[in-house]
């Protein structure tokens, strides 16, 4: 019972087919490519280009002045902070979970795999709701938290929880297949030669999973910086206090400050571009390794 999520690796597309049917119509590929690109343009390209055009529609001056507003700077700072916490925490968890799952055969293994994937299929709003029901004023830990004067909901800790929740599966999901493929022969060989656990991890396991791990880190970071729904529910979206960049974008848009919204949106779009470029580089790297 495992869910193999689609592997988001682009194809190499290097297979050249020699055989062609007798009546290969030369216009068919052209029409199909045209339809595909038109569809992608309507859904993805035009909206993506629009972000950049809108942000600089009044020139670079207003764009830069938007980026020096206090609310924006605070939101950017919070976003970096959220990612800086969620990333290491989920990396440690992801490595432990990957190791536990890939290195042991046990009953219910598939169930654990599905569980790790759960945050991926739960609506972000429901994820936020769960955190509110636990740590909110009327939640399970609410009375205790109030007695000790700890604020989690409508405050930074809640945002951290929400961010960590939605970006949980990525590292584990990317590392498990690599670990399984790599096998444990080398690790066992090192063990018989007297290597310590952490030596084995640093010198053998880590180098062999590094690309998969990096891939997972990139996806985790993109999700952590870009999460909106769950963070929005738990944060209360208070400007200058609990507003990450994606929340700032929505808030500015709702206040009819479209320019400010697009200025911040461009930065997040650049994050997406960097993410895609790094992904592509890593995929080529791993593909070249596969060919070897």
């Amino acid at each position: 019972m495992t869910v193999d999520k689609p592997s988001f690796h682009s194809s190499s597309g290097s297979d050249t087919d020699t055989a062609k049917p007798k009546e290969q119509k030369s216009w068919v590929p052209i029409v199909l490519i045209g339809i595909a690109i038109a569809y992608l343009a309507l859904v993805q390209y035009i909206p993506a280009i629009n972000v950049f055009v809108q942000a600089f529609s009044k020139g670079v001056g207003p764009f830069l002045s938007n980026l020096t507003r206090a609310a924006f700077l605070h939101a950017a700072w919070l976003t970096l902070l959220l990612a800086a916490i969620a990333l290491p925490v989920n990396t440690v968890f992801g490595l432990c979970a990957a190791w536990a799952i890939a290195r042991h055969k046990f009953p219910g293994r598939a169930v654990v795999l599905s569980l790790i994937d759960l945050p991926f299929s739960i609506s972000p709003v429901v994820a936020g709701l769960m955190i509110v029901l636990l740590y909110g004023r009327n939640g399970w830990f609410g009375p205790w938290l109030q007695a000790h004067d700890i604020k989690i909901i409508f405050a930074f800790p809640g945002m951290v929880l929400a961010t960590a929740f939605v970006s949980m599966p990525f590292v584990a999901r990317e590392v498990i297949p690599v670990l399984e493929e790599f096998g444990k022969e080398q690790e066992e060989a090192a063990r018989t030669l007297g290597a310590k656990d952490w030596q084995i991890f640093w010198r053998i396991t880590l180098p062999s999973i590094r690309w998969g791990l990096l891939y997972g880190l990139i996806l985790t970071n993109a999700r952590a910086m870009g999460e909106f729904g769950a963070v929005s529910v738990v944060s209360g979206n208070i400007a200058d206090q609990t507003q990450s960049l994606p929340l700032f974008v929505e808030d500015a848009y709702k206040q009819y400050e479209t320019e400010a919204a697009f200025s911040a949106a461009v930065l997040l779009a650049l994050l997406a571009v960097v993410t895609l470029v790094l992904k592509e580089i890593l995929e080529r790297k791993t593909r070249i390794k596969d060919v070897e």
Partner: protein
Amino acid sequence: MTTVSPSVEVERKTPFWKRLGRVPWTWRITIAYLTVMLFIPIAAMFLKASTEPPARFWAIATSDIALATYNVTFVTAIFAALLNGIFGTLIAWVLVRYDFPLKRLIDATVDLPFALPTSVAGLTLATVYSDNGWIGSLLAPLGIKVSFTRTGVAVAMIFISLPFIVRTVQPVLQEMEHEIEEAAWCLGASQWQTFWKVILPPLFPTILTGVALGFSRAVGEYGSTVIISSNTPFKDLIAPVLIFQRLEQYDYSGATVIGIVLLSISLVLLLAINFLQAWARRYDSR
């Protein structure tokens, strides 16, 4: 990092608590983290829902406004996923089978909706498809309004779920053997017949898996849909937004009941996707 010898599997006779002491710490971290982050929150939600009397739970879950949001959410998401089932398969086909300029770039950008934060997607889609936006201004004379209507919600759902279908179908198409197609051609089948009778049947479970994944994502989507929708009840209000509104009014039980409905549907979909994938694998094992 500790590896456990296989003897752990054998030691069924030793009492449970003794074996617990020998659990490697990687397992402990995994279980502890999953418990704190996943099990306790889910348990909290179900317990909160169970404090409602069943009659009241049912009344909230099937109130008029809730039913209307399910209608908007699920019907729109099915529409978006099916449309992407067709076009996503076509895009995967084009990327696998044909060579054309900028193919690598187009292939890489299919994943854009994963990398682009949803609120940015909502902002730009709402702008592009508004009455004076790039695409919306072309549709406005035809009387088609997209932003701030249910159609806009559909556009956001299409945006968010497209990569799931493309990336599910692509690897399977990649591995499909050309021989069968060539055999069909040799036997005089036209391209069209080959596609319908030889390529599509084994591909169908995979496409369905992709559609189910896309649907699951579209149902839960909040960031882009909340921005492009006008959030008017009975018109284009979706379930996740209703949960959010209930929370804003401090109506925790109302939010929880609708949350449970959404969560249950996610879980059912997860099971369905599992079975679909098992079905898809049957074709591999021939």
